[in-house]
């Protein structure tokens, strides 16, 4: 062209090249971070889980499916400044201990069922999904499902897993609100799988989400939450 650009700031080729470099750099950085993250969020193995529990070591961010054989808690970590999952002693799950293969198969069934029944279009999982029904990230740890909690009591069962499985199979028999969960034809096996999926999800290190989990509504309603 006869009239060359006087300034680089109005030069199309300058901006085109800059756009290319910036996009390329961002993409490369994203790919590099992705490799690092994929390593950190891969599902752990049973050996890693056993070792971490025995030595009170830091655990995989996503533990092995056999985590369903352990008691899970969610406690404030002073150093990190938020709650983190704590894997405790062994406990039975549906009355038995699940070997690695059985646990993996159960989790597989549960994850598949969670997609087949479209859970995510009412609930949120890890905070993602729809906002029509409660978040399920730490549902396994919800006080309402524990012994003495209203949700466990309503099903007439004695353990968290049995109460949840009963609810999932006949949700509209146990209304907790005018907004009810519909009957999705969940079988007994699928319900077990779903509960394993929920228990496993509660053991994932979510950087403290949700925060301040499961303070009771009773504490809220009586006012002055900490006034005893």
């Amino acid at each position, binding site marked *: 062209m006869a009239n060359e650009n006087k300034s680089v700031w109005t030069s199309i080729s300058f*901006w*085109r090249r800059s756009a290319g470099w910036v996009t390329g750099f961002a993409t490369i950085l994203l790919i590099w*971070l992705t490799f690092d*993250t994929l390593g950190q969020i891969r599902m752990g193995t049973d050996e890693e889980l056993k070792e971490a529990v025995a030595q009170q070591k830091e655990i995989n961010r996503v533990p092995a499916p056999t985590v369903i054989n352990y008691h899970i808690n969610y406690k404030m970590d002073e150093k990190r400044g938020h709650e983190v999952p704590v894997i405790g002693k062994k406990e039975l799950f549906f009355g038995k201990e699940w070997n690695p293969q059985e646990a993996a198969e159960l989790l597989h069934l549960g994850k598949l069922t969670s997609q*087949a029944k*479209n859970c995510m279009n009412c609930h949120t999982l*890890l905070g993602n999904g729809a906002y029509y029904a409660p978040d399920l990230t*730490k549902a396994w740890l919800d006080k309402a499902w524990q012994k003495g909690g209203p949700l466990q009591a309503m099903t007439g069962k004695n353990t968290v897993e049995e109460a949840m499985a009963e609810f999932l199979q006949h949700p509209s028999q146990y209304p907790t609100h005018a907004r009810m969960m519909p009957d999705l034809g969940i079988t007994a096996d699928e319900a077990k799988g779903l509960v394993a999926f929920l228990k496993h999800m509660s053991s994932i290190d979510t950087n403290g989400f949700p925060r301040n989990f499961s303070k009771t509504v009773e504490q809220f309603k009586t006012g002055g939450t900490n006034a005893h």
Partner: protein
Amino acid sequence: MLTSIKTNQFEGSESKKLAMMYFRVAIILFGAQLLMGLIAAIQFVYPGFLFEIFDFSVARMVHINALVVWMLYAMIGSVYLMLPDETGIETVGIGLGKLAFWVLTAAVTVVVLVYILIQVGPGTESTIWLINEGREYLEAPRWADIGIVVVVLIFYWNVFATYMKGRKTGIMTVMVADLMALAGLYLAGMFFTDNISMDQFWWWWVIHLWVEATWEVFVGALAAYALIKIINAKREIVEMWLWIEVLMLFGSGILGLGHHYFWIGTPEYWWEIGALFSALEPVPLVAMFVHVLYDWGKEQGIAKAKGEAGAVVKNGPAMAWIVTNAFGNFLGAGIWGFFHTLPQVNIYTHGTQFTAAHGHLAFFGAYATILIGMMYLGIQEAYGIKQLRATFKSKMAIFLITFGVLGMTVALTIAGYEQVLVERAELGAGWNAFFAAQDLPWYVQAQAWRLIMGVITFVGFIYLVWDLLTIGKVEQAEEAMVATA
């Protein structure tokens, strides 16, 4: 250089006819999206509505799927509309393009019917292959995923081959590169894993890198094309702006992906990366807004200096929608996104109606608006109208839809704010905390207002369809009358 754009005759362009076919299906799916949204909104207020017949999960699934699919239809239509203008030649594979259109439309029909009639399946692989995949936005069963990939490959080949054969403008260069990324990213959402963290990690590669990166660049390219078309903006300036927008959109949007990796099991470093880059995401949206208004003012000023009377805008309704896009993109994606993008805020807002508020205004402001504008551009050409002016119906449509969506956004923001304070901050997000917050008057009232605003949006939509069906004939007749007078 621009003569081919000015003299292009619609009758001679099969590509533009194909564009109109895509627009027609897009508008039908847009209607389906709004109807499903109304059902879901009613269920928030009256939970017994269609319970165990057509549950919220089904209505919501069709609501968001119809949204994505109508936008993809309108995007493909927009590309077929601009291809002959930009490349200066007819699209290479029209026959194949038409075949792909019918295959896609048949597939979409089957998928929607299965969603509505079968809804859920047993917890087996076959459900994921045949009924639905149960992953928000990517519910389409696997067979349809594969079909979509094939159709998109045909579409992409068409665009690429036409681009290679014809003139290579800056706008088309951006478009061709962007569409490749857009199509390729879909593959990241096509696998099953038992690991929910891994699942969501890749899920966001599709959702975020579509909506907050490749789709935004797509809109930038569309706006550039439309500004040349509607107000005769100078190509050199428009294309320079486009490259700056690409730089800023990809520069912030690609790593902005980090703001979805705060709480899904991914490491803490995403807090800083996500916060920094997503906080920059509104910057290009401001730039796009400034750019559109600046060019408009400049071209009008030049016309005035030349002593020309009247508006430089050659398509009133399209320009109105594009200006709404510039503002809505900044407000919905930029401001409403920034509201809750920092991890310190997001730990409380994540998974509340805050997200829904942002989603409504952003999808509307950033995408629905400009795609509707493109439909008006198509109609103008289809009827060979020199200057398409807005009718009463065009004005009612844009006013009611924009007002309705803004109203829904405000209502949902209030609902989200209450949820954040009561359910999240005070009660800590358990089952009972959720319902305690859902029952408080602030929340209930907000949901009622959302429903009312949804109805207003729907009335606006009826005006829009009515206008799109009639404006061409009306304006054509008027122009003929002026010409003979």
